[in-house]
C-alpha cells in the first residue's frame, strides 16, 4: 500500500505570535517498495514532513494515509503509537540517541518498548547486528566507546530491529566519510531490494539521489516544487539549479559541455552515453 498525503499542512506554534507554517498544502503519493528521495534547501520542511510519517507530528490540516492508519488533525498521539513500529524513523545524527550500558541493551530497547519478551528481544538483536555490518563481539561493549560511524550503525540497528515496513532516513550520511556513506547507502539499498522495504531518504547528496533512488520529491519553502522519477528529474538540470542545489558531477559536466557547444540530447545522463556522444561529435568535427 502506498503512502498518500492529501493537502497536508503543518503550522508550528499555531495561535501564538511565533506561529510558522512549515508545510503548506502538500499532495503526494509515495509508492510502496521504492526508494524515494526528499530534497530541498535547509528549512524547506523536509524534517517536518518526515516526522508526520510515524505520527511524531500530527498535521494541522489535511490527511495522511500510511500502513493502514488514517492520520488527521487533532488525532491523539497515543492512537498512533503502534504506527512507530511500522514506520522506522532514523533522525539526523542518530548516534546521539544511544544511552544504554551495552550495545545489546540499547538495540533491544525498541522491541521491549513494544512489548517483546527479554529472550526474544535478545535473539532479534543477534539477528540484526550482521545486517548493519557488526558481529556478536560487540554485544557487551559500551556504545560510547565506538567510533562515530560504528555508533551510527548501532543506532540504525536500534530502528531496524523493529522490522519496520517503511524506513525513513533523515540525512543518514551527514558527517560520514565517503566510504562510510557509501556503505550506509548500500545497506539501505539491500533492505529495499531484499526485504522490499519502502525507503524514504532525506538527503543533500545529489550523487546518492542519482545512483540509488527511484523517485524524487523537491520541497521548497513548505510546498512541493517538483515530483518525478529520477531519470526525468536529471534530464532537466534547470529544475535542480532553480532550487539552489548543486547537481551531481556528471550533470555538471554535461551542462559545461553544452555550454561549450556540444549537442547532447536531454535523455543522456550517464557516463557511457555522454562519452559516446562526445566521441561522435568530435569525429564529425574532424
Amino acid at each position, binding site marked *: 500500500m502506498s503512502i498518500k498525503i492529501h493537502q497536508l499542512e503543518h503550522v508550528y506554534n499555531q495561535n501564538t505570535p511565533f506561529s510558522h507554517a512549515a508545510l503548506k498544502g502538500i499532495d503526494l503519493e509515495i509508492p510502496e517498495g521504492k526508494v524515494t528521495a526528499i530534497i530541498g534547501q535547509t528549512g524547506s520542511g523536509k524534517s517536518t514532513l518526515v516526522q508526520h510519517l510515524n505520527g*511524531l507530528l500530527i498535521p494541522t490540516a489535511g490527511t495522511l494515509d500510511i500502513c493502514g492508519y488514517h492520520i488527521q488533525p487533532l488525532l491523539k498521539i497515543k492512537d498512533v503509537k503502534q504506527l512507530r513500529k511500522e514506520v522506522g524513523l*532514523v533522525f539526523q545524527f542518530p548516534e546521539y540517541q*544511544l544511552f544504554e550500558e551495552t550495545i545489546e541493551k540499547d538495540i533491544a530497547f525498541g522491541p521491549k*518498548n513494544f512489548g517483546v519478551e527479554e529472550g526474544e528481544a535478545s535473539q532479534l538483536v543477534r539477528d540484526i547486528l550482521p545486517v548493519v555490518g557488526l558481529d556478536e563481539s560487540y554485544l557487551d561493549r559500551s556504545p560510547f566507546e565506538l567510533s562515530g560511524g560504528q555508533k551510527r550503525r548501532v543506532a540504525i540497528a536500534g530502528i531496524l530491529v523493529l522490522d519496520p515496513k517503511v524506513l525513513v532516513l533523515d540525512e543518514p550520511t551527514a558527517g560520514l566519510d565517503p566510504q562510510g556513506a557509501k556503505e550506509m547507502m548500500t545497506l539501505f539499498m539491500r533492505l529495499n531490494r531484499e526485504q522490499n522495504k519502502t525507503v524514504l531518504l532525506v538527503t543533500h547528496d545529489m550523487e546518492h539521489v542519482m545512483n540509488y533512488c527511484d523517485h524524487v520529491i523537491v520541497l521548497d519553502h513548505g510546498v512541493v516544487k517538483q515530483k518525478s522519477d529520477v531519470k526525468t528529474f536529471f534530464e532537466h538540470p534547470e529544475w535542480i539549479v532553480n532550487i539552489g542545489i548543486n547537481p551531481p558531477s556528471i550533470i555538471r559536466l554535461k551542462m559545461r559541455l553544452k555550454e561549450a557547444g556540444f549537442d547532447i540530447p536531454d535523455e543522456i545522463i550517464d557516463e557511457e552515453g555522454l562519452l559516446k556522444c562526445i566521441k561522435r561529435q568530435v569525429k564529425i568535427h574532424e
Partner: protein
Amino acid sequence: MNNIALGRYMPLNSVVHRMDPRAKIMILLFLMIAVFIPAGVWGYVLLSLFILLALFLSKLQLSFALRAMKPMIWMMVFLLVINVLVIKTGTLWFELGWFSIYSDAIYQTLYIVVRLTLMIIMTTILTASTKPLDLTLGIEKLLKPFDKIGLPSHIIAMMISIALRFIPTLIEETQRIMNAQASRGVDMENGTIKEKVMAILSLIVPLFVSSFDRADQLANAMEARGYNPMQERTRYKVLKMTGIDYVGLLASIALLGLCVVLAVVL
C-alpha cells in the same frame, strides 16, 4: 517549548532597546529594592506607573510580558489558598460554617501577587530589550570593580553568556532526542514506574553525552583562537552612557527614595 517568553530577546527598535545595558541593570536593581519596600498602596501605584511607562517606551506588548507569568499562576492560586486558610486577622469578610475569609488574607496575597507581577514585567523588559551578549557585557562591566577583591568578573560574565547561548540549543536537543526515542516506542506520558524511569534515562543520558561533547568542542574552538581568560581584552563594542541612561537612572533612584520616604512616613 518554543513559546517561552521569559528571557527571550525581542528585536524591536525603541529607546529602551538603545539604552546602555549597565544602566538598565542598575535601574532593574533599584526597582527590585523598591518593590520590597513596604511603601503602601501609593508606593505600588507609583512603581506600577513607572514600569508601565518603561513597557510602553520599549514598544513591547503587555500581553508578551504577562505571558511570562503563566507558569506562576498555579503558584499564586496555591498561595491564595494557604493564606485564606492560615491568616485569620483583620476584618471578617465571609463566613460559611467552619470556612471564613479575613481581609488580611486577601491583602497579603494581593501584595505578593503585585510584587511578583511587577518583578516579572521588569525582568522581562530587561531581557526582551537587551541582547544576551550585551547583557553579559553589562554585568561584566558592573562587576569589574570587584576584581580587586578577587572576583573574576570576566570569567563569570563568560560563563553566563555561554549558558544563555546554549539554552535554545539544549531545548532543541531535548526535543530531538525525545523524538528519536519516541520513534523507538518510548512513551513519556503513560507506562509503569519502571518504564517511566527508562524513558527519562533515555532522554537524560544522551543529553549529558552531547552536552559534554559540545563543551569539549567549544573549549577547543576557543583555545584554538587563543582565548585566555586571564588576558586583558579589548572590545569591539564599547559601552557608552548617554542622556537617556542618566535620566532613567535618576528617575529610578528618585522613585526608590520616594518609596523609602513613604515607608517611613506611613
